[in-house]
């Protein structure tokens, strides 16, 4: 079923560079990858005109592979006779300022899911109706689920990792001061990540 869908998308959207990824070792789910620029038109098609109408967006999950960021959209079809779900993927190669079009007017469920993706990974969604952090406080620095995230020791005067409660020598993911955080960020920017 996924093959037919891929053929349809390839014929309708030749610019989207539609690719089918099968699981490399045989177990797991397959996924369809498209380019970030063609996201909105493919989503409109999948919701309205495709024979498997994907009425529901279940979750948007962001993953940090160190060379690129990946945003996965889980779409589901809620027909009572046949239920189907698929994974739609988009790769973002720019790690410093990743940005993507928002699909919150296509599926209003995407509103909060995109806010969480921004909060955890830093992906900026354009034309989002209410763009701000959702889980972490508004003045939080950094994006926690990135692989190079280093937690801060102090937040607003409170000690997040007190010395007498932790074994700090082994904790490489905790920094001791704000200046050290800025140094680390400069280093990762310089590497072009």
């Amino acid at each position: 079923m996924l093959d037919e869908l891929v053929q349809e998308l390839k014929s309708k959207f030749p610019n989207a560079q539609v690719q089918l990824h099968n699981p490399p070792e045989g177990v797991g789910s397959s996924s369809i990858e498209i380019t970030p620029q063609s996201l909105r038109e493919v989503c409109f098609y999948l919701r309205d005109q495709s024979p498997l109408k994907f009425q529901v967006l279940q979750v948007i999950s962001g993953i940090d592979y160190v060379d690129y960021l990946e945003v996965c959209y889980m779409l589901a079809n809620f027909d009572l006779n046949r239920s189907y779900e698929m994974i739609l993927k988009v790769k973002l190669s720019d790690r410093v300022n990743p940005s993507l079009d928002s699909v919150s007017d296509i599926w209003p469920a995407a509103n909060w899911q995109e806010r969480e993706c921004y909060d955890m990974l830093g992906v900026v969604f354009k034309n989002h109706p209410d763009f701000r952090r959702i889980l972490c406080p508004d003045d939080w620095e950094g994006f926690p689920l990135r692989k190079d995230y280093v937690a801060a020791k102090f937040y607003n005067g409170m000690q997040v990792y007190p010395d007498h409660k932790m074994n700090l020598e082994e904790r490489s993911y905790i920094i001791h001061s704000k200046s050290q955080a800025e140094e680390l960020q400069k280093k990762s920017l310089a590497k072009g990540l």
Partner: protein
Amino acid sequence: MQDGIVLTKVDEFLSWGRKNSLWPMTFGLACCAIEMMATGANKYDLERFGCGAFMATPRRADLMIVAGTVTLKMATRVRTLWEQMAEPKYVLSMGSCANKGGPYWQHGYHVLKGVEEVVPVDVYVPGCPPRPEALIEGIMTLQKKIASERLLRKKWIKHVG
């Protein structure tokens, strides 16, 4: 005034009155809140210790049971609510998340490692979540602590600042 038999007995009487009518504030944050609700329900009755009146407002309560994980976003509110309570007030830290961060101590960038970072704590109740019997033992320990307070015999100032 010096120590004497009259003041000791009056002290004991006042402490007896205060320890047998502790009014807790509902401050259930996470899973431990469900165990606190179960302690207040009919199998492990908390009403028989005088602690049955769960007040939602801090102005009328004198015991704050911090039940659940305290996150950084919530920590300022915990402090505000504690400051709104009237003296004499007590804090009971319930569960391992409120004691020292719980299972989230290692990679919890948003978890406060123990509520004692923001409010002074009187009694710690360990467990994840603590059984209702453990919470009752914690409240009885707090009652013992209150019974030994010297109200009139020595000028008491608790929790300055």
